[in-house]
């Protein structure tokens, strides 16, 4: 067997990856220490990873490298053209205000920073939301029901074409009835009842479609994990998967036996 084809670091990596995968899967049996170890490792590593990336992206790339381009001596000497390199200091100040949250006495300063960020975010969002998700959506829902062809008018009954007349009507009925269902100022009785019920039926079919898609999504994730486990179960990787699977089961059995009787899962 050409075991040496896999470099050592990849081999160790494969064993660790398989081990951690099985730790997490052990949750399917029940909540247990192996799962908790895996989970806390995950949180710890991802926090560590995030800090490193934020450090290099924000503090080095966006702040330090820009400031380092400036020449403080030139500015002291009266040449202000380098001043633009110090622009990142403004957001740094605001960012530091956010950090005052850690110091209860001056924590209120962080409100100024939040006000700045949230104000900008809200302002920027309003016209863009109106444009993309209100006007644009109305625009596409409003369509003529009839089409003009060869001097005559026709109403297309083709269900397979999403733009056909009949689908335009269904879309319109759907949008209006669902909007009406989320309308709280009138009682749903009489014609209102019929419209709201129609809305509910549309909602349920729509959620059904989403449900089907979500099932697909979750299954794909499992398939991906199993694919990796299978890849690492070959002789090239020293049968990592079967060996570690056995070990995990043994650990679970020992844990189960060593627990005092009657102790519930934490």
């Amino acid at each position, binding site marked *: 067997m050409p075991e040496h084809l896999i470099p050592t670091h990849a081999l160790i990596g494969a064993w660790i990856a398989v081990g951690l995968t099985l730790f997490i899967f052990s949750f399917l049996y029940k909540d247990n220490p192996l799962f908790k170890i895996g989970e806390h490792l995950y949180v710890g590593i991802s926090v560590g990873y995030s800090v490193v990336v934020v450090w290099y992206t924000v503090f080095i790339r966006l702040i330090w490298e820009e400031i380092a381009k400036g020449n403080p001596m030139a500015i002291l000497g009266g040449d202000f053209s380098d001043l633009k390199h110090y622009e990142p200091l403004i957001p740094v100040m605001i960012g530091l205000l956010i950090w005052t949250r850690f110091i209860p006495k001056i924590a209120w300063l962080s409100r100024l920073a939040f006000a700045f960020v949230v104000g900008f975010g809200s302002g920027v969002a309003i016209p863009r939301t109106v444009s993309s998700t209100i006007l644009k959506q109305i625009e596409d*829902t409003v*369509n003529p029901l009839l089409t003009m062809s060869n001097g005559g008018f026709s109403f297309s009954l083709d269900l397979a074409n999403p733009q056909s007349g009949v689908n335009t009507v269904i879309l319109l009925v759907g949008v209006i009835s669902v909007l009406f269902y989320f309308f709280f100022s009138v009682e749903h009785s009489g014609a209102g009842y019929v419209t709201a019920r129609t809305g509910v039926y549309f909602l349920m079919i729509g959620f059904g479609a989403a449900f089907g898609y979500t099932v697909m999504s979750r299954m794909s994730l499992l398939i991906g994990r199993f694919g990796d486990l299978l890849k690492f179960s070959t002789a090239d990787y020293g049968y990592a998967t079967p060996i570690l699977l056995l070990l995990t089961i043994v650990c679970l059995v020992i844990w189960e036996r060593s627990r005092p009787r009657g102790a519930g899962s934490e």
Partner: protein
Amino acid sequence: MILVSLFLLLLIHGAAFAAPFPLTPPEGFRALDTPNDAGTSISLVWKASPGDSKDRKVQVWLAEKKANGSVGEFKKITELPSKSRYIKPGDFPWWDQPAAKGDHYVKIPSSQSFPIEDGKGYAAKLVIREGDQEVSSPVSEATPAPNWVNLAQINNLAFVVVFTGILLTSIGASRRNPHMYLRRIAGLDAVEEAIGRSTEMGRPILYLTGAGDMGDVSTIAATVILGEVAKKVARYDTTLKVPHRDPIVMAVCQEVVKEAYVEVGRPDAYREDSNFFITGDQFSYTAAVDGIMLREKPAANFFMGSYFAESLLLTETGASTGAIQIAGTDSDHQLPFFVTTCDYTLIGEELYAASAYLSREPVLVGTLRGQDIGKAIIMAALILGTTLATLGVLVQSDAVNYILDLFKDFK
């Protein structure tokens, strides 16, 4: 004679073969500052011609105007087929049209080969070519400038202004009358039933506020509803358990629950530990809450707020213990799971509506009413728009666009 007529015939025939329409200079050609832009660009318009075809090319030539008013050397900027760049319906709103529908419209931005600067005059002409023939248009001049308002988007601004007005008015109205009419929400009747059942069975009530922080509308709604649930719990003297994953949300909820107990005159029954923090991690939190459900078998589970992948893990465990489950969330991607595993689900905006309905907080009620009016306008626009658009096809008229354009998104 015969020869001449033969020659003429050939000429006519040949010309007809190559171009049924003679090469003429473009009509109505003019250059203008590109509307609604940041400057450094000019636009050209000219009328469509029956001779427009793929093979007939249009060249755009530009020249800079000198300070003394003379025109510099013309440079060829681009070449395009004459049968292109027509103004289509929907390109420009009726209140801001650089030219009529069906005309040609070309925007010339500044480029490295021909930089266009604001405030300078530019002369433009078109050269129409077909085969080795060519004709030139008259020269037209324009001065690019940046604009202060994007007129094409003025309907967007109008929408924002009108909506702001509606919102402020309805908040004002609900301050005067916080009991303005709101329709009953089906899931809310179940709340009472669920609490009653818990009391009968002597089992606790579990209430989750979701994964969001206090910046989430759904979390705010969840805390408001918690207050109302807590009042009923205090009256019935049942146990309430609220496990948390965000310390700030927990602090807020402690206040809310305490106030509720005080309000119904049972401050003695309030227990500080009904709100407790578990952890911020999604799956440890879920595992812990599942454990509570299995051990203490609450008679009613409430899931309010925003949820992610953990939703199914929670509701499925809850369903297996036989609890009444009431959910309310705006996380639409998780709604299918709540709907199928819970007894009652407040869908999307119903969650916000429930918080307004129960608390009668003027700002919440007013916002709900304001959004309702906005929705009514949109529903009306959809029905009216479709009718008008169909009418427009029937009578072959563009007049309906005066209304339809108001609800379109222009750039």
